């Protein structure tokens, strides 16, 4: 095998835990998360940045893991769907997705959840058009998006301490 390019050290925090490993310079963050760290909640739907299924947050920003080299995340903090829930239970977004019926096959769900989390961190009061625009880099083939948009809107209300309308 001629892939004898020198591996390099990668240090990052993934879902709150420090991780240190050797990676090849061409390895994507998606490969490292899925294959080396077994975080298979990160999905590969296209491998070319078009579907959004692989979205993770890198230092709080939504990134397509399939288009991100693992080494770009060196020194960063990475959040995947597996890190959304904590000891207290599911995140508000996760709970809202369940209750609104926003999950069908679930393949787009991890990316949708992280994109939603990212949106609500930036904008606690998005209107429907903003939610739709923000999620429009994420393909869902099952739901027609209606219940996902509803879930995000409900989650936003709940995060603000209001009852969803």
């Amino acid at each position, binding site marked *: 095998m001629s892939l004898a390019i020198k591996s390099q050290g990668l240090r990052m925090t993934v879902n709150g835990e420090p991780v240190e490993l050797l990676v090849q310079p061409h390895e994507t963050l998606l490969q490292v998360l899925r294959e080396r760290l077994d975080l298979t909640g990160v*999905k590969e739907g*296209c*491998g070319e940045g078009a579907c959004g299924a692989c979205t993770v947050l890198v230092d709080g920003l939504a990134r397509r893991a399939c288009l991100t080299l693992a080494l770009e995340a060196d020194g960063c903090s990475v959040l995947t*769907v597996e890190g959304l829930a904590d000891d207290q239970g599911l995140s508000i977004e996760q709970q809202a997705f369940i209750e609104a019926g926003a999950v069908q*096959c679930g393949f*787009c769900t991890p990316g949708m959840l992280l994109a939603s989390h990212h949106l609500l961190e930036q904008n606690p009061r998005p209107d429907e058009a903003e939610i739709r625009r923000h999620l429009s880099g994420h393909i869902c*083939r099952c739901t*027609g*998006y209606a219940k996902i*948009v509803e879930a995000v809107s409900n989650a936003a209300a709940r995060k603000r301490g209001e009852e969803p309308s």
Partner: protein
Amino acid sequence: MSKQEWLIGTRMPRVDSEPKVRGEVQFTADIKLPRMLHAKVLRSPYPHARIKSIDTTAAAALPGVKAIMTGQDTAGVKWGVFRYTRDQQLLPVDRVRYVGEEVAAVAAVSPEIAAQALELIEVKYEPLPAVSDIWESMADGAPQLHDDHPNNINVHVAIEVGDVEEGFAKAHLVREDVFTAPEDSYFMTEPYAVVANPRPDGSLELWMPNAAPHQKAKALSNALVMPLNKVIVRKVAIGGAFGGRSDVFPAEFITAFLALKTRRPVKLVYTREENSVATRQGHALFTTIKTGVDAEGRVLARDITCYMDGGAYSSTGPIATSVPFLCMEQTYRLPAVRYNGYRVYTNKPIGGMIRIHGRAFAGGVDLQLDMMAQELGLDPLQVRLRNARQPGDTTPTGSYVQSCALSQCIQQAAEAAGWADKYGKLPPYHGIGLGTNSVQTGFPLGIRGGSQAMIKFNEDGGATVMSGVVDNGQGNDNMLVQIAAEVLGLDPGHIQLISADTEATANDPGAYSMIATFAGGNAVLAAAEDARRQIFEVAAEALEAHVDDLVAQDSKVFVAGAPDKGLPVGKVIRMALIQGRPVIGTGSFTPKVDHRREWLSNPAGQLSETFSFGASVAEVRVDPETGMVELLGLWLAQDCGRALNPMVVEGQFEGGAAMGGVGGMLREEHRWSDTPRCLNPTFLEYKVPLACDMPPIENIIVESMDPTGPFGAKEAGMSIAMSAAQAIIGAVSNAIGAPVYDYPLTPDRVLRAIRAKQDGEKQS
């Protein structure tokens, strides 16, 4: 169902949603097994060629390569849904018929090494002339794809009922129009993948996204020449199907073969492009529809000829060629009808059934009705109602319709949309349209047409439900649990579900042709009722009560009205165990269909025990400069029999409207080079609808309470996917004041229709 249900009809959150939001469910590509190898497939660069030789020596010598297979290793095993359509070698021995067809496969210790090995395989091809569309293909002297199919006609469905010519002769108005659409695709978000694991006991377990585990297992047992109980298709999370996971593909055969050869687990994960090109695509259609109506718009006769581009092999050919016709004959009353459906081979990827299969068929039927209504000065809404199927009717090919609320769907959708205030009253380039459709819940599948279920109990009162029904994402797992919990009076959390695992579960027809709820749901309902009866028999003795007076609720059994004196279900189960009469519920359901019915030789008799019906209204605005269509709203009404879970049903409506209507009618199509090679196999070039593309949607659930569906349920969402697309055609044509015959309604096609209208006006 006289008793009031406590869980059926509620918006119970799906049982599979928590593991999914946690990212914990495993899809096939997520599976990792010890010593697992990775497979890659070498594909044909030619649309049509003879394979002269394949040299795998260099590839085999690459360190890390563990096995290579070509058609020579497989004795040319063939696949076809029917005995008479077995025309696809699962790995071709001497000839390839489309760009992307499998030629060889490698298993290696990593996907990178497998990919590198593919480059070392030397295939010598002798390119043959290829055909890229149905007209070229059917022409005399065209290259023949399969020896026994002159003019490349793969399937011919011929149906004639009533006196069609007499109908036309009596008609007040007759129209003939042609409607077309190119290929479209599923684009389920999960790319295809297979894992095969040979086990020490000689069995082989497999995981793959599928719409019928038992059918996959059967096909593989034939191809691998292994007993059926040794080929085990396992449960796995599935990222959507939409008709595109129903058939059997070379991928599972290849993965299984490589696993058996190496005695190691093998995983094959398709790229997005492979998923588009090498599983299935929707058929291109060319449909000529001739309809005769009386002065009130009642259809007297219809004659349809449809040509479908089927690609290189048969796949579900006879079914695919029939279904658009069947949907239409179910939807509308038809005293006389003739249908000639031709599925034609071309050197393109294989055509399969898709959620909006036949958009240039159903769409044409409805648009033509609109045009005729206009010529007769009638409201299209009235014309629909005059022709709408009614309960108690029999379809032209002989299916009795036991429940049908199509007229209510049409009326309610129209009312919600404000049809009366809008039709004919909207400003220029602003239009409204109506579509209606009907789908079957299954069709005759012989010995594999029934579903069987079993329920066992643990001493703590928890139950385990076993059913062969598969969940592709639509919520079938939840449907099964919800039904069992309802009947047994158990919290859904106390029910463990084993589904779609052919080692454990008994036969089930699969989650295609909309049968999962009707057959699988009914089987689980029967099993739960059987178990409850056994529980009641034990409890009745202890409670000194009559079995008929007992109810099961909140994990307790008690005399109706006296919940305080009840027995916990766990206690009843323990009593039953001590008494040597353990509770095991079994149930089965076999739909009443006419088994003599056959797609080609005898298209007559009961097709499906029941049918669902839907009507959609669309409102649009069209930009006359650009041809861009802006969708202002969709009103979706379906007779789903009974909404077991309205939240799930709405999700099916909304998803159907997105894929069928917004995607299927406004943008989705495959484009081809002259080769022909698919030019847009990925998400970057093939435009599926996004969140920002969706209009406001109003869902209208109509419940006809089917007499034999579980709790009255039939099917959810499929007739919405279709009718939404039809409604959009009507709305756009209404907006521009001219019919649009070619789909999807992309700006170029809409502009062409506007120009044609303007040219026509100038000439006259």
